[in-house]
């Protein structure tokens, strides 16, 4: 009985009820949770301290720009926003093609702060939103874990793990103003509400789960994970014969309301009905109706045949529904699986079919050290926690197991999905660790950094479930003798060491790996002081101050959001890669000869071309290294005009030096990158420090574009596209004439003379 009431009391946030002892514990709990939240926030501020309060990376720049638009123009204008400064000249129906949750959240915070006369710059809200929400995430994982585990310390451990796990910090440092910043909180909280709903079979919790699911849908495309995980949970429960009215109530409530809620988001629209990713939820919904109905009849009519009937019915319905789904998908009524989805199952799929998805670094498969790097000791506590779930396999533990399995797989496929794995790892690890602590510290005076278990374990005897600790005590107690202070001290010491190591690791990773804004690069001078390389902003501000406000800038899509955000100039393509053809057009312009590129640039009214070149500084993330992706994407659309093979030497090498193939040397990208580069060096000594190769003695020559700006370290180079020649000549001819080369006299022509007709 106690176990049933306890979660509710914690869940409803009621820490202040009950006797004095409980009061003290509750107060301590709150203080600890607040400290954890503060820690979570504080550890994410490294980036602000190290660098400055600035928006990071690429996508956040768009979110920031959208938020500014929202704040300036109000919600309805934001909703109808047609952005004519991106994807020139197509424009982007931005209001209908983004997940507005993030911007609306920070807009609401901004308005709320203004309402209490605290005018804060919207930039600061955007920068600090992710850390703020990470504190809430820690709290949500506390609630979720408390629902899952009977141990009082598990929730607090999960909270602190969640607060400082690098896997989550990687996407939520200050300045990383991305959808994930709030989405992870919503993910965890929706799971908490779902567990709550399943446990209690309450419409209210189900409705709340649906509302938060709706919020999640509005915030992040990763909501599909929830959309599939919850039905899977329900389905597994049914298959295990664990169907209960509670499940029916919670699932149907969640689905009916959640689906409607998700359809309110313009970007999602009819997808929940149309696309295959959402079909499992619909199928399970239908299945539950049938199961519920048969279950109802069985109650009226208990007979053994009914078991059989139920089973066959479930199986038949499943097969029929699946067949129908396949049929509808084939016939095109339901949108087929999207490419991103395929790449989840077949890691090689994207590389072959949709290079644009494969080209995104965060869509790459995860390297195995990344797991340890991001999760440290949690990664080996994780299986133990999942094992614990099997020991008392209730509905909610089933959920953890499913979540763990799915998330592990997905995290292995895509680096980015490490983010969805982190919560379950934290929860499972916390459950495992708290199990150990509870078992060993039941009656001890713990000398352990995290106070929670100690305060809680004192009353564990009378209060906690007799289940696991008792089992362990009865089995292991006599053999090992864990009552002795020796063993207690050893275990406590070991755990303390691990925890301290974990904290150290997290701090180190956070401060060194995840706090770089990537807009500003840092390097160490020989004397150890930090040197800031600020070429990006230098170039973007040059654009902002020296070009017409509507000068179109062509660059590879990586820099689209930054140009839009920092330089405030229209771009051709950006990180919202919705139009593959348009991106391929840019790729073709970059990878073709000037004569081919120029008409493309004219057609798209390009005024400036921006390339990123790291050859001088040894900055490896430059456009020449991304060049193969441009070629591949362009080849996907124009297989006859751009061929990847032409850009390799006969021995299949990718080279930029003397032996580079003609297609490479003549491509616009190559020319723009190395234009005038040889003049920096003594003749014939030009050296590319990224690719470590010596460049041809004769530098490339440009005729259709002219150099407009090169940043201090040559990282960003901007070229101006020349206007058509006044006399109607080609730019090559005009250039040759300028240099004084006499045009070849037409003289004697070969073959029949072409006569002019006019």
């Amino acid at each position, binding site marked *: 009985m106690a176990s049933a009431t306890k979660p509710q009391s914690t869940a409803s946030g009621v820490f202040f009820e009950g006797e004095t002892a409980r009061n003290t514990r509750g107060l301590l709990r709150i203080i600890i949770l607040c400290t954890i939240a503060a820690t979570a926030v504080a550890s994410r501020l490294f980036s602000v301290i190290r660098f400055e309060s600035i928006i990071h990376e690429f996508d956040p720049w768009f979110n920031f720009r959208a938020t500014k638009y929202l704040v300036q123009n109000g919600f*309805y204008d934001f*909703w*109808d926003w*047609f952005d*004519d400064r991106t994807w*020139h*000249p*197509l*424009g982007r*129906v931005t*209001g*209908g093609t983004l997940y507005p949750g993030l911007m609306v959240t920070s807009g609401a915070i901004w308005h709320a702060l203004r309402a209490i006369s605290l005018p804060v710059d919207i930039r600061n809200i955007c920068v600090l939103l992710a850390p703020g929400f990470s504190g809430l995430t820690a709290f949500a994982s506390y609630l979720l874990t408390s629902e899952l585990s009977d141990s009082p310390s598990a929730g607090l451990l999960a909270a602190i793990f969640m607060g400082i796990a690098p896997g989550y910090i990687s996407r939520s440092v200050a300045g990383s103003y991305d959808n994930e910043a709030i989405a992870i909180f919503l993910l965890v909280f929706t799971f908490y509400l779902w567990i709550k709903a399943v446990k209690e079979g309450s419409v209210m919790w189900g409705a709340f789960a649906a509302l938060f699911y709706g919020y999640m849908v509005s915030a992040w495309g990763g909501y599909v994970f929830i959309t599939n995980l919850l039905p899977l949970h329900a389905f597994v429960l049914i298959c295990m014969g664990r169907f209960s009215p509670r499940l029916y109530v919670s699932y149907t409530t969640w689905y009916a309301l959640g689906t409607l809620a998700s359809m309110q988001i*313009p970007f999602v629209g009819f997808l929940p009905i149309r696309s295959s990713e959402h079909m499992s939820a619909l199928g399970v919904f239908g299945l539950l109706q049938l199961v519920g109905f048969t279950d109802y009849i069985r109650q009226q009519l208990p007979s053994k045949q009914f078991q059989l009937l139920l089973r066959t019915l479930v199986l038949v319905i499943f097969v029929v529904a699946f067949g129908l789904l396949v049929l509808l998908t084939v016939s095109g009524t339901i949108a087929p699986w999207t490419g991103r989805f395929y790449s989840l199952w077949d890691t090689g799929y994207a590389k072959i079919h949709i290079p644009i998805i494969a080209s995104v670094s965060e869509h790459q498969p995860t390297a195995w050290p990344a797991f340890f790097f991001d999760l440290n000791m949690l990664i080996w506590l994780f299986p133990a926690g999942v094992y614990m779930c099997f020991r008392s396999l209730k509905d909610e533990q089933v959920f953890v197991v499913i979540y763990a399995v799915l998330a592990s797989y997905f995290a292995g496929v895509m680096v980015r999905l490490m983010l969805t794995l982190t919560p379950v790892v934290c929860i499972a690890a916390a459950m495992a660790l708290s199990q150990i602590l509870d078992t060993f510290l039941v009656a001890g005076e713990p000398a352990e950094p995290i106070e929670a278990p100690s305060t809680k374990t004192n009353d564990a005897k009378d209060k906690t479930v007799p289940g696991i600790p008792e089992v362990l005590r009865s089995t292991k107690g006599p053999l090992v003798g864990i009552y002795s202070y020796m063993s207690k001290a050893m275990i406590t010491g070991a755990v303390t060491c691990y925890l301290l190591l974990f904290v150290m690791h997290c701090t180190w990773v956070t401060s060194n790996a995840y706090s770089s804004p990537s807009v500003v690069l840092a390097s160490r001078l020989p004397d150890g002081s930090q040197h800031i390389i600020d070429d990006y902003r230098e170039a973007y501000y040059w654009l902002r101050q020296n070009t017409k406000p*509507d000068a179109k800038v062509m660059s590879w899509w990586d820099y689209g959001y930054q140009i839009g955000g920092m330089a405030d100039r229209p771009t051709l393509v950006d990180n919202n890669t919705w139009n593959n053809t348009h991106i391929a057009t840019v790729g073709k312009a970059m990878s073709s000869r000037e004569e081919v590129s120029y008409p493309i640039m004219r*057609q*798209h009214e390009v005024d400036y071309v921006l390339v990123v070149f790291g050859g001088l500084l040894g900055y490896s993330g430059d456009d020449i290294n991304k060049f193969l992706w441009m070629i591949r994407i362009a080849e996907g659309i124009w297989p006859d005009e751009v061929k990847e093979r032409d850009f390799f030497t006969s021995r299949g090498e990718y080279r930029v030096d003397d032996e580079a193939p003609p297609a490479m040397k003549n491509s616009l990208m190559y020319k723009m990158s190395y234009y005038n580069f040889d003049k920096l060096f003594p003749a014939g000594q030009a050296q590319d420090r990224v690719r470590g190769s010596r460049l041809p003695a004769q530098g490339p020559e440009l005729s259709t574009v002219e150099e407009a700006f090169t940043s201090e370290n040559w990282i960003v180079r901007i070229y101006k596209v020349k206007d*058509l*020649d*006044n*006399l*109607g*000549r080609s730019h090559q*001819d005009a250039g040759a*004439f*300028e240099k*004084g080369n*006499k*045009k070849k*006299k*037409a*003289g004697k022509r070969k073959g029949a003379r*072409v*006569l*002019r007709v*006019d």
Partner: protein
Amino acid sequence: MRFTLLGLLLGFLGIVSALSATGSSLLVIIEEEADKSKYSQFWADLQGRGYEITYRSPKDTNLSLFLHGEPAYSHLLLLPPKSKGLGPNLTPNLLVDFINGGSNILLALSAEQAVPTAINSLLLELDINLPSDRTSLVVDHLAYDLTSSAEKHDVLLIPSAEPKKGVVDFFSVDGLVAFPRAVGQVLGNASPMLSSIVKAGASAYIYNPKEETEGVEDPFATGSQINIVSAFQARNSARFTVLGSSEALQDTWFDAKVRLPGTDYKAGKTSNKEFAQRLSEWAFKEIGVLRVEQVQHSLDEDTKDINPKIYRVKNDVRYSIEISEWDVDQWIPFNPPTGDAVQLEFSMLSPFHRLSLNSSPSTTNKDATAFSTTFRTPDQHGIFNFYVEYRRPFFTAIEDKQTVTVRHFAHDEFPRSYEISAAWPWISGIWVTIGGWLAFVAIWLYSKPTRDNKPASAKK
């Protein structure tokens, strides 16, 4: 385009007396002072039209086409030099810069002197080819002047060509124009900027008198491929006119009596004077200069909001452009030649609409014609241009681009569901559901007392 127009306007305001739309300063490059008098009638005519003529020798070291980086003269008349070259102040590059600066050049050639290589390579840049041996001239054994070149057949008498459909006719004169010892030009195929003013007759060919051989094998060009006078307009509308025969401008030919071989044509006076006037009017932009006065676009139903930045898909849009033409001394309403029309493109990457604009007398005011049309924006959002590009032979180019955004339907611009009759069943479905629910709740609450019995009994 804007700047050109502004330049035109400023130039016009600055020198009111000038007849040219661009300016009145004319530089004449003439090598020998003595030769000046040969053209006295032509100079008088030009001065009478308001030009301030500066005469310079190509050898003059102070000669400079530019002042502070800008062209120092509005117009340049190059008469054939005696010496081989044009000197360091008139290199092809400088001349090209002069054109790029917006000034006009009238180049007169003569087969009497060898064409300088500088001129040759300059013309090559414009895609105009001259005979490779630089002393060739055009002869026509059927259309020569019996009076002056009965032997050599090198004074061509050419009547004005029949006006072509859709092309403005600025140059036709009555009677014959004499072109003595003309250098024939062959125009390249590729360039749309070139146009021919006077062509040689069908029986003409290019012949080098210095060559000793009898008869001509493989002539450089024949028939109407030979141009005696040709015109080039750069993208900035600077005009470059090539006159094959400088002698045609001389006094002797202004009032010479000529006679065609054959019987039916009597000897008559040449029309050279008139032609020279027409040619210089055109070459120095006294005629055929177009200007965009005003561009207006708006929603068709709401004409108050002029030139909005943004439209919606499927809007009815009205567009109008006022164009005027400079005619010697005033701006007059421009009317395209018959068979031609000003066209509007509504384009994003490629044109979605290409419409001929209509001019109506009612909208035409004193000095400009308003061309207008209405159309519906396509069902495609994006950044579109109202694009009028009017490039025709002998008219300066008009290129006007108004960029607007065409947005999608806003969320509240779709028809509300109750406006769609097909949606009524489902609307009623919702409200029936809600009504049923309300009734259910009401009955439930009402039946509460009776309900209490059963849980009580159940708890037994």
